[in-house]
């Protein structure tokens, strides 16, 4: 127990506290700010929330808005419904069919980030990409994904990347429903939709909530899309984690980077608390 507490203390709790302190200083990697960082009060925060330049490309507001679209598109509308749908459709079908589809989804989930970044650069390339080759052969025009729809491109990528988690979670949850429930609903002549709405969904609702909040939390922090678009073109696909990385490790302004990190942590913390509260509420009802 003691070693675990030391590790968690040093590498999780300590950074959590320290990042707050750094966010009130003008600490940098090199120059005067590195030797003697000084306390600058709320200056970093005011700079971050400077409403006049807030939404301009490369500013924090722009990154926050992109992140919102990215999370809603790829997690709430993408991974969770798709994962649920896949678990439902293949729940009671031939094992081989299900194994084949599930295996492919899991492979996309476990491959290293750098590898999948390269394959997606190739997949969506304007001139040579596989997707455009398919679209062209179907008589549809080629699309310049990374220039015209960079945010949509990384949303698609993230759905592809992460659906397996929701799928496995829901698949395991459906496995806990007694088969007699399905048979009874068949006998009384319920349609597929009625069965889902009145029998299955109420039983797996806690898992839907779990999946939504965990996937949202992870999607918020994901960094792999940086390897595909680099946040570009012109910051149109820059999320807050890319913003933090750019300010802290490209410009080496740790004070400003820490300020953005604090905002990210506060949003994450709100999501996490929401998750715990909803867990608690379920525990009360059962």
């Amino acid at each position, binding site marked *: *127990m003691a*070693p675990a*507490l030391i*590790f*968690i203390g040093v*590498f*999780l709790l300590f*950074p*959590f506290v*320290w*990042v707050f302190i*750094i966010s009130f200083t003008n600490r940098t990697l090199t120059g005067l700010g590195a030797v003697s960082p000084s306390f600058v009060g709320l200056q970093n925060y005011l700079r971050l929330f400077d409403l006049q330049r807030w939404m301009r490309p490369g500013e924090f507001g722009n990154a926050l808005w992109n992140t919102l679209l990215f999370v809603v598109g790829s997690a709430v509308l993408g991974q969770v419904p798709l994962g649920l749908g*896949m678990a439902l459709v293949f729940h009671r*079908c031939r094992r081989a*069919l299900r194994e084949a*589809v599930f295996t*492919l*989804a899991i*492979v*996309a989930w*476990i*491959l*290293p*980030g*750098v*590898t999948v970044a*390269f*394959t997606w*650069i190739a*997949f969506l*390339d304007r001139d*040579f*990409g*596989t997707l455009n*080759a*398919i679209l062209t052969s179907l008589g549809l025009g080629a699309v310049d994904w990374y220039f015209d729809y960079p945010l949509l491109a990384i949303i698609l990528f993230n759905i*592809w990347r992460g659906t397996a988690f929701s799928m*496995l*979670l829901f698949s*395991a949850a459906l496995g806990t429903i007694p088969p007699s429930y399905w048979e009874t609903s068949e006998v009384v002549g319920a349609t597929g939709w009625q069965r889902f709405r009145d029998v299955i969904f109420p039983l797996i609702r806690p*898992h839907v909530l*779990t999946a939504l909040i965990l996937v949202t*939390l992870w999607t918020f*922090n994901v*960094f792999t899309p940086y390897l595909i678009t680099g946040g570009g073109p012109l910051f149109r696909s820059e999320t807050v984690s890319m913003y*933090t*990385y750019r300010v*802290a*490790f490209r410009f080496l302004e*740790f004070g400003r980077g820490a300020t953005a*990190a*604090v905002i*990210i*942590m506060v949003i*994450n913390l709100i999501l*996490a608390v929401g*998750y*715990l509260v909803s*867990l608690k509420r*379920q525990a009360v009802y059962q």
Partner: protein
Amino acid sequence: MRRLKSLFIHGGRSLLAILLAAFFLLPLFWLLTAPFNPRATLRAAIPSTPTLENFRAVFANRFAVRALLMNSPILAGGAMFGVTIIATLAAYALSRMRIPGHNVLVYVLILFSSVVTGTAAMVPIFLLLYSLRLIDTHIGVILVSIGGLLPTGIFLIRGFVDSVPRSYEESAIVSGATTWQMFRHVVAPVVRPGMMVVAVWAFVQAWGDFLIPMILIRSPDKMPAPVAVYSFYTEGGTPILTVVSAYSLLYTLPVAALYLFVNWRYGFRFFGGIKR
């Protein structure tokens, strides 16, 4: 009529399965073809004259080989051993010490680890290692990885530890075993499958991690494979695709092999852990 309907449903399901399989497989097509193509571009095509020349080019680059065969295994292996051992001991203590509310504690730690890891923690982590003089060392990267992976590791292994009957331990103590002997000879054999799961999971996580080594490692001869792959670029900044694709494939193989192993041995699915 009923038969027609069932035929319809089966046909629809198969069509859906094909579409989904295509969605998940097509982006990987390039990774499977380009490494064997002597003139690989971003176009995914089955090469007319398949070759292993690209792999030879990879192995001619000693710096990249070192990253793949030495640095990456050191980082992932170190994280794997650290996480497995520490998480097992911690889960055992959590399960036996009867700390009030220890379920909530583990959940809070997991959520906390996803709040704090990632880019948000990189600034303080960097400064922490800077003051400990651990920047540009393997041990620094390993320690950071262990810290980030531990909470989930404890969560994964806890179910296995809880399944050890307490009477086993009591009888060991009665027959005069020390605490360490009891842990080694009674508890460890029972939780070994759980330790395997955590070890494989931690290895895959650390092997694929890109952000931590990119920030913490400076010198080229210490870089792991996911950072080193960016050395296969021309001076103009475009990747040399023949070598990049071959290197990516080699770098991916251990993860694929581990997946196959786990799937064959245990079946790849969630265990009891999802019970909220």
